[in-house]
């Protein structure tokens, strides 16, 4: 009478994969190597796969956050533009099961935040210096991630590795905060009432760490972790600005949850303002979004599938 087997309707199912899958294969490669070393008394073999060391070292080797000498630094600013013409319409979120949250939205009701375009500017793009940074001040202060009306504020957050992230709940109902990084240690905590705050950290650079709430399937946020303070998230108008960047040549990367990554070279001069903008076109929808795993966002009746394309 039972139908065993995976899928009655595979389309409806979330093809699940472990955040830790890659870690698992690491484990076996390492164990196998270890076994080989022990058994055959061969040397070498244990070389592969320690990706964590670099991040840690960078974090710790960073010089103490000395006062910034204004004569050696400049600013990067620019825009993330959407050049695709027709802006994809965002899906409505059915929050009817959480009336308190739904009440916080206007007549249109809550909408998904995957692609927010205003006057051609693309919001929620995470931009950061991906190459060329040598040494950086240690993190200071705490970044904050709030949960307001069953949505994350902000939707995309940048933090420095080791920096405190104060996660708080402004809704008087249960949210859980389930971060599933691949390089860092993940966490899955909950905040059942308003006013509860919890502090978390990510030790290693990782772009991006997906964060979701399992109670409210539509709640999704991304945290970009880099090991220097030279990052920004574009605002509602698509603009960003990164101050106090030491003069030099850099590669800059922009990340968007639907459109993937773009890179650009930028040269910062002391006291100057360098310009770096990123143009996203509509064809990039569903591009390779570098992240641990495939995400299926289920918004009540609607579903948006963001697949990682190999």
């Amino acid at each position: 009478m039972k139908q065993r087997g995976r899928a009655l309707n595979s389309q409806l199912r979330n093809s699940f994969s472990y955040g830790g899958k890659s870690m698992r294969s690491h484990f076996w490669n390492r164990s196998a190597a270890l076994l080989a070393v022990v058994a055959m008394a061969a040397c070498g073999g244990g070389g592969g796969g320690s990706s964590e060391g670099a991040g840690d070292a960078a974090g710790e080797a960073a010089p103490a956050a000395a006062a910034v000498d204004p004569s050696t630094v400049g600013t990067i600013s620019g825009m993330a533009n959407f050049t695709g013409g027709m802006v994809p319409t965002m899906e409505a979120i059915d929050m009817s099961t959480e009336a308190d949250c739904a009440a916080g939205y206007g007549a249109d009701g809550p909408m998904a935040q995957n692609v927010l375009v205003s006057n051609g500017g693309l919001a929620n793009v995470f931009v950061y210096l991906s190459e060329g940074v040598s040494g950086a001040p240690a993190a200071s202060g705490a970044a904050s991630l709030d949960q307001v009306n069953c949505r994350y504020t902000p939707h995309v957050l940048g933090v420095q590795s080791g920096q405190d992230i104060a996660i708080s709940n402004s809704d008087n109902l249960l949210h859980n905060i389930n971060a599933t990084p691949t390089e860092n240690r993940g966490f899955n905590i909950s905040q059942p009432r308003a006013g509860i705050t919890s502090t978390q950290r990510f030790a290693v650079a990782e772009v991006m760490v997906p964060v979701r709430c399992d109670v409210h399937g539509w709640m999704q946020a991304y945290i970009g972790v880099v090991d220097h303070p030279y990052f920004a998230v574009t605002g509602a108008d698509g603009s960003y600005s990164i101050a106090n960047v030491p003069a030099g040549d850099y590669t800059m990367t922009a990340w968007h949850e639907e459109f993937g990554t773009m890179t650009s070279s930028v040269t910062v001069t002391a006291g100057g303002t360098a310009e770096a903008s990123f143009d996203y076109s509509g064809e990039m929808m569903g591009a390779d979004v570098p992240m641990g795993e495939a995400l299926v966002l289920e918004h009540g009746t609607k579903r948006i599938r963001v697949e990682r394309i190999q």
Partner: protein
Amino acid sequence: MAHAATAGRVPERGLDVYTQKVGMWVFLCSEVMFFAGLIGSYVVLRFGAADTWAEPGDVLNVPVTAFNTFLLICSSVTMVKAFAAAQEGDQRGIKVWLLATTLLGATFLGVQVYEYIELVLHKSWEGSHGFTPAAGLYGATFFTMTGFHGFHVLLGVICLAWATIRAHKGHWGADNTHGIEVLGLYWHFVDLVWIILFTIVYLI
């Protein structure tokens, strides 16, 4: 009713089997249940996902393991020989047979380690490199069952080594066979489990 009539009766004497032997058999009962848990899970999981199992010999090296099985059978016979020698007070026999058992057990372990290394490093399974416990239910059940059996053999070998050392000090003899018999029971049980495992894991 329960008192006077039976007052003069001969007291009951347990099983008429010495306590250590009873204790070992009782312990073996729990070992049976432990392996039943593992083997039972194996049977059930395999029924549920028969298509993910390899044909005998495809992944596992049957000839090598058959040889290993033969080693364990030999170690069983040397173990009973040691017990027989003890009963007859044959000191040389005790030492030789116990040593042989220890060595055979150790060789079994060595072959098993070799087998594991070959599997983990040089076999491929379902496209991925290396046949590991993470390689589906087949790998998981294989390594769990043979691994726990191997662990039992290891414990047995350690005890046997200790018994062999004692033999060289002249500890055992016609008046002191209990230790060897009890250890033998454990060792034969390990052999017996392997007979089952070899059949269901390697050959079926």
